[in-house]
């Protein structure tokens, strides 16, 4: 995916949206700490061992999980592997173009991957089959279908839903042979439901779940990944402006409430 042309927002629109926000109003009428409508549909793709479709407002991502046996990394011989890939499809926005992942899709993949890995969503130790030789690798493919802002929260929410929905065959070691019993599929071992909550800073205010219109004028973006106990497992700032320490601490306290709320959409 290559972004074809920087979308330049006219100054007059930028000012008008910013002024609304300074007056406490978002153009779509939401409160600053209010998500758009959320839909999570697990199990939508029959050929994927795990899948989910997630919508936050008009943003829509399809996520598929495909486990396969592979070799563990040298420095983690007893752990399964999670591989995250994102396609910002050219159908998702008029300025997305087909091509290899650009910096935006790479960042989305890596932020999602970190939140899920550091949040220990999947118990990777249980995915080890033969130490140093064979482990389950789970390929998580994020297919972005419709882009209307806040891809990060949708990506993480949908990924966790897809992983919760994923099944692998019962795997046994018999002598020198690995027996994969596809007649007895078991769910992936899920430890934790770490999720992310994203803030946009516009006109000095912090809003959660920015729409595309808001993203295009936001100064900075802050995404916070949280485990169920409210501890922090990932964080990522983005955008051309800075944030203060106080803003970050405020965002953390809001994220605690909102990730818990997001978690209710999981099955």
């Amino acid at each position, binding site marked *: 995916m290559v972004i074809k042309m920087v979308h330049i927002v006219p100054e007059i629109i930028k000012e008008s949206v910013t002024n609304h926000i300074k007056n406490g109003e978002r153009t779509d009428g939401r409160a600053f700490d209010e998500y758009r409508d959320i839909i999570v549909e697990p199990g939508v*793709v029959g050929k*994927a061992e795990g899948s989910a479709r997630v919508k936050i407002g008009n943003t829509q991502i399809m996520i*598929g999980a495909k486990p396969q046996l592979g070799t563990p990394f040298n420095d983690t011989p007893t752990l399964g592997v999670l591989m995250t890939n994102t396609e910002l499809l050219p159908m998702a926005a008029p300025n997305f173009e087909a091509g290899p992942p650009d910096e935006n899709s790479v960042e989305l993949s890596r932020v999602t991957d970190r939140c899920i890995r550091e949040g220990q969503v999947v118990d990777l130790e249980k995915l080890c089959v033969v130490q140093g030789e064979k482990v389950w690798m789970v390929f998580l493919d994020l*297919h972005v279908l419709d*882009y209307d802002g806040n891809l990060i929260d949708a990506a993480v929410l949908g990924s966790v839903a897809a992983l919760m929905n994923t099944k692998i065959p019962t795997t046994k070691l018999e002598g020198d*042979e690995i*027996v*994969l019993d596809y007649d007895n599929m078991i769910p992936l071992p899920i430890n934790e439901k770490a999720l992310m909550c994203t803030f946009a800073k516009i006109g000095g205010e912090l809003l959660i779940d920015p729409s595309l219109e808001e993203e295009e004028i936001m100064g900075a973006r802050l995404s916070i990944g949280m485990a169920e106990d409210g501890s922090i497992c990932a964080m990522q700032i983005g955008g051309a402006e800075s944030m203060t320490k106080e803003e970050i601490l405020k965002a953390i306290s809001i994220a605690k409430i909102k990730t818990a709320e997001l978690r209710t959409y999981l099955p």
Partner: protein
Amino acid sequence: MNIIITNNNLSTGTETSARANNRAFDELRNLKIEAGVLERADGSAYLEMGGNKVLAAVYGPRELFVRRLMQPNKAVLRCKYNMAPFSVDDRKRPGPDRRSVEISKLTSEALTPAVFLEKFPRSTIDVYIEVLEAEGGTRCAGITAASVALADAGIPMKDMVVACAAGKSDGNVVLDLSEIEDKEGEADLPIALMPRTGEITLIQMDGHLTEDEFKKAMDLAIDGRMKINEQQKTAIKNRYGD
């Protein structure tokens, strides 16, 4: 280290002697089309046909930035057909392969005769097809869906384009081959046509057919076109009302 797979649910070759679900030789699989399923695209459609799940989106007519493709007296219609990595049993590596490059070219040629491109000189109409789940016949499913997405985008067309494969499976000439019928069958013949006139905009074949079998297969596809076209029209009607 050997890997042993036990799986009693795998279908075996002998089961294909009768069509699944007792389908008649000229019967289509379940077909469902919905128009206007995406927000950003100018037009879009979602289609299920048997186990296939396909999404089509259209952008345009819009400015064409690649000067070397520009046509002074009409628009170009470009198509990208892509399979999601999770749409098939063994994960597909992301990005185009030779198969998808060829299908993209053929899809664009299958849709082109139906569109009044000369109304939009120097511009482009971009069609994107995403296969979300594949179960035999995705190129036809993509063309049928793309045609609805073009209509949803308000692109002026002579007619919609309908696509369906006929072929030979287990000795019989049949319509709309499923994945297993295609894989174990003797011939596959995807056809796209404009239902009103019956003009053919895509034909491909691989396998082995006598001239008579070929005629029979072609006729099956031609005769099946109206049922598919009904669903296309219904999808547009449901989106915009009568």
